């Protein structure tokens, strides 16, 4: 799960990670009111959306006076901010963060991530702050400091010193940096984060260490034990069909193509999308109804797929194992009868009780095309699109 910068900074504050003075505003008036309390200009007005690259897209602006805050906040709130992460439609901005300007001496990069290959928590840092870390990693990997930490041991002072010396920090800055990093690590493990990133982390002319930006992602699997974090979820930042699907425990991702598909199991679902592409079409979605899909889930899946206006045909691919094909076929028939299906549907089933399942589909009176195997399914999808 992703959260907004201002929410991430609330957590930073709670954990003693220094941030600039500031608050979030829903309107230009509110933004101007906040600016007055920050004790001087310039102030920074930052669009709050779940995507990076906000500055380049015109979503981050400096203002030198109260009236300028009012006007730039007016430009940003309500705009469709387009960045390399939002897609061509952009994302509507509803809130801005208004913060004090800082006397920046040095910009650094700092993040904490889990490394899946070595099962360690890794602190990554670089003197190339403010830049896209993936570019730095690709072009000058030697400039990135990586310190792996065994989660059973936890972060120690020597880990922090290794990072601090690697960043060539001035002796006076090392102590506040070490305190900050320990707090940041505590935030990471306390809340089951999957990413904490500060880019840039700044050293000010006054030799303080301040998180100018803040990005936190959370492990969805751990949200059950963090009800307070789950409250931060902003459904307005998500695809409405995906929000609807998640209510029915369906794993759905909306894509640009026109062949809808419903599959049991994530690996088989991805392979089915690939198959659609090989047949000369584009998948309209990823939809995993689960290894042991029920008739009800199939019905909900149908509804979600059909509410995407781009869908011109549907491929259902189910490998019935523990879940028998006859039970599944009944589910498909019931769902098809209840839902107003106005596009061709190809059904490919395999597994236990397959003959009985095929008979149920054939005798249903529904316009379902049955495919015998995956090759046949791909061919039938291609035929539908030609017609």
């Amino acid at each position, binding site marked *: 799960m992703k959260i907004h910068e201002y929410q991430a900074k609330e957590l930073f504050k709670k954990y003693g990670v220094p941030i600039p003075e500031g608050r979030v505003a829903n309107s230009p008036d509110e933004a101007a009111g906040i600016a007055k309390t920050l004790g001087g200009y310039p102030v920074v007005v930052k669009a709050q959306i779940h995507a990076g690259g906000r500055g380049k897209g015109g979503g981050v602006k400096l203002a030198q006076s109260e009236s300028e805050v009012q006007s730039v906040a007016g430009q940003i709130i309500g705009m469709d901010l387009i960045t390399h992460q939002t897609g061509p439609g952009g994302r509507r901005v509803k809130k801005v963060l208004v913060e004090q300007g800082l006397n920046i001496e040095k910009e650094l990069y700092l993040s904490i991530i889990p490394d899946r290959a070595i*099962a360690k928590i890794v602190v990554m840092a670089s003197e190339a702050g403010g830049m896209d870390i993936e570019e730095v990693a690709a072009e000058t990997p030697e400039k990135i400091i990586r310190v792996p930490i065994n*989660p059973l041991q936890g972060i120690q002072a020597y880990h922090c010193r290794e990072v601090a010396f690697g960043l060539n920090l001035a002796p006076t800055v090392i102590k506040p940096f070490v305190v900050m990093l320990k707090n940041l690590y505590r935030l990471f493990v306390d809340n089951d984060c*999957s990413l904490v990133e500060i880019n840039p982390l700044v050293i000010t002319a006054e030799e303080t260490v301040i998180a100018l930006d803040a990005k936190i992602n959370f492990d969805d*699997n751990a949200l059950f034990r963090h009800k307070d974090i789950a409250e931060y979820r902003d459904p307005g930042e998500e695809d409405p069909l995906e929000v609807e699907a998640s209510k029915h425990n369906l794993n759905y991702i909306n894509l640009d193509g026109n062949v809808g598909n419903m599959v*049991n199991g994530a690996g088989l679902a991805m*392979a089915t999308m690939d198959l659609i592409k090989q047949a000369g079409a584009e998948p309209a979605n*990823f939809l995993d109804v689960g290894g042991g899909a029920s008739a009800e889930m199939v019905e909900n899946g149908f509804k979600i797929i059909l509410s995407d206006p781009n869908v011109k045909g549907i491929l259902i691919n189910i*490998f019935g*194992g*523990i879940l028998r094909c006859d039970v599944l076929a009944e589910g498909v028939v019931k769902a098809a009868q209840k839902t107003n299906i106005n596009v061709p549907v190809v059904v490919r089933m395999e597994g236990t009780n397959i003959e009985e399942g095929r008979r149920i589909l054939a005798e249903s009176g529904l316009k379902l095309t049955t495919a015998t195997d995956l090759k046949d399914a791909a061919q039938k999808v291609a035929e539908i699109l030609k017609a």
Partner: protein
Amino acid sequence: MSIFVDKNSRVVVQGITGREGQFHTRQCVAYGTHVVAGVTPGKAGQKMDDVPVFNTVKASVAAVGANCSLIFVPPAFAADAIMEAADAGIGVIVAITEGIPVLDMMKVMNYLAGKPARLIGPNCPGIITPGEAKIGIMPGPIHKPFGPVGVISRSGTLTYEVVNQLSLQGIGQSTCIGIGGDPIVGSDFIDCLDAFENDPDTRGIVMVGEIGGTAEEEAAAFVSEKMSKPVVGFISGLTAPPGRRMGHAGAIISGGSGTAEAKIEAMEGAGIHVCKNLGALGELCAEVFV
């Protein structure tokens, strides 16, 4: 022969009295697996069908000699269950549970380091040596016993698809392992490839990967350096968009790494026969292995 599990595996099911635990225990018993015990804290002395239930894994090891565990415990308690099994001296731990927090699994992996226990999963269908032992949730009848091909996969139903195509071609399987779809899993491709290489009855291997992480690339390097047996590969997720988690927690392309293209390139470079069309995987295996 086979790898990791066989007719001598004596299985304890952790979470045996839950809905999933009961259902799949019965399926495993029906297949012929020796399920010797179950564990549900507080329910010692009860029986699930004919299987005695214990409070702890240690007690099941002491009383009935369990040497393999099958875990159906909910995500919040699964890390504890895995560590309990390892601490009780269980040799092979199969964790079916989906949705274990990443930090919990990191602690488990660091705890298991240097211990003899082998973890399979989590978020996997389990492991089957057809004709001998089914320790997991896969449908037994699609498998063809005592065959020459080993199967390793990060997926569930996609594995069944692959196994079914092999069986339809008349190609049986030595052992099939679902290593799991999570970012952090106990046994990886390399552990399984190594074991299959050393198993005299396995003559070839099918490895089924997907987007996310670099496990397939590392496995490809291992194949080119250490393996003499032929390997057929398949990767799902060519059409997956970057930055999105495709159902499996581990299936995500991030920062340009973990793409299907990169994996396929690495595997082909290592001499692995990569199948591009899932519908034709069985036929390719028939060409390569028979």
